Every structure is written in structure tokens, then in C-alpha cells.
């Protein structure tokens, strides 16, 4: 395998997951929370594909494609929620949407 070893790819994937987690936890705009969630899913995907290459096993790539489909579903439902919030004139701030807080 030319270039860097799989460990480098896994390190980038871990950093990407950490950046995405930071965005999910810090940002208050639900749209940016969803975008950061995409970053986390992409970090997971990169690790899956790197380890699939490492073990010569196709299941990792298949799982990455399934993760992509789940990400598309999540965006579909999440953006539907954002549109519904906007239609009810609720503020787009995840800190103020606390009616379901236990």
C-alpha cells in the first residue's frame, strides 16, 4: 500500500469525529447541529473504509454505504423538523426548545 498506513486514516477519522462532536455540543442552531452530525458520520465512514482496506474485507464498504443511507434519512427527518419549527414560528435555537425536558 503506497502512502500512509491505515493508522493515519483512523487518526484523521477520530479527529473528524471529535470536531463533529464539538459542533453538536456547542452550536445552538439546529441546522449547524445537523451539519456537524454529518461530520461525525463521515468520520465513522472513513474509519470503516480504512479498516475495510486493511483487512481486505468488503463488509466495511457495504457498512459505509448503509451509513450514507442512514445519514440521508437523518437529514430528511431533521430538515423536516426544522421546516416544521419554522412554520410554527418557533425560534431556531436548540436551547429554547426545552418543552420535552424531563
Amino acid at each position, binding site marked *: 500500500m503506497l502512502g500512509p498506513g491505515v493508522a493515519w486514516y483512523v487518526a484523521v477519522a477520530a479527529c473528524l469525529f471529535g470536531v463533529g462532536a464539538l459542533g453538536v455540543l456547542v452550536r445552538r442552531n439546529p441546522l449547524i447541529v445537523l451539519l456537524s452530525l454529518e461530520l461525525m458520520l463521515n468520520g465513522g465512514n472513513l474509519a470503516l473504509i480504512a479498516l475495510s482496506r486493511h483487512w481486505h474485507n468488503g463488509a466495511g464498504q457495504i457498512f459505509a454505504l448503509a451509513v450514507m443511507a442512514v445519514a440521508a434519512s437523518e437529514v430528511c427527518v431533521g430538515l423536516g423538523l426544522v421546516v416544521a419549527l*419554522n412554520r410554527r414560528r418557533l425560534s431556531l435555537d436548540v436551547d429554547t426548545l426545552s418543552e420535552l425536558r424531563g
Partner: protein
Amino acid sequence: MLAVSAGDALVWAVWVIAAFSCLGAGVAVVSFANPFYSALALIGNLASLAVMYLLLNAEFVAAAQVLVYAGAVVVMFLFVIAYVGPRREPPWSGGPSWQTVGAVGAAGALLVEIVVAVGLQATGSLAHDGRVGAAFGTPAWVGRVFLVDHLLAFEITSIVLLVAAVGGVILGSHTRRLDAAAAQPARREPQRGVEAVR
């Protein structure tokens, strides 16, 4: 191992550029105040990730990544951002509250946990490299693996997408009750007043 060929150096260079632009675009997604720019930065992140997938012999996944994410997901994000209007929300507005500090600490703890878990599990076993066949990662190979070995996962994925599409339509559609409620300004006024105070 010591003899570094020209191809090896080239792949290293491409990897370094892709990795840094990937992480830089990720930081940009998190730190832009305007969600529109965040969505545009996500495209850069996805493109550099696709380059890394190509370096890992995953041609089909790289193409699917560009098509699905840059072609569909980001476009949908941009539509919704244009619909709700760009609201600027600087990420560090209002100074460091205890919530922000806790969130940064939690994210850092998560990163440390991942690094420790991977490092403990993978000491040495990630070092050896190997060659894969020429068919690894091609569309024909992925299709055979997906539709022969993992047919159930394929079908479940399609059901998940169908359910999500139905849910998105239900969440985004006008219901008569909601339209009637929105048409009565008397009942909406107090809530709007609260909104304005906030």
C-alpha cells in the same frame, strides 16, 4: 521500507493535502456563524474525504459520497437554509458560559476516549500493510458483495430510506389544523409576544 519511491511520495503528498483540507473544512463547518457558509464548507470536507476514499481503493464509495452528499444532502441543506433565512449565530457569542466549557470538555473527552480505545486495540496490528486485488472497491465488486452477501442489509437500507421519506413528508406537509391555528391571530398573539421578549 526505507527506499521511498516517487509514487509513495506522491500518495503521501495527496494524503496530507486531503487530510488537512478535510479537518480544516470540518473546523470551518463548526465555526462559521452563518449556516450557509457551513453548508458550503461541508462540500470541501466531502470532496477531500472522497479523495481519501480513492486512496483507499474505494472508488465506488467515493463516487457515491460525492453524488449522495454533495449532490443531494448539501443541496437540500441549502434549500432549507434559504427557506428559513440565514440566522447568524456566532459560535462563541456571550462569552464562555459553563455550558460551552462543559461541551468543549465533553468533546475533548470523547476524542481522548476514541484515541485510547483505538490505540489499545490496534497496537501493532495496523502496521502491516498488504496488497488488494485489482477488483477491490470497483462498482462490480461492490455490487456483487452488496447484492449477494449482504442482500438483507440492502433491503433494510431501502426500507429505512422509505420510512424517512414518509416521515419527512409528514413533518413538512401542511395540516389543516395547523393552518387553521395559524389563521387565528388572536390565539397566536400571546405566543408571539413571548417570542419577541426572548
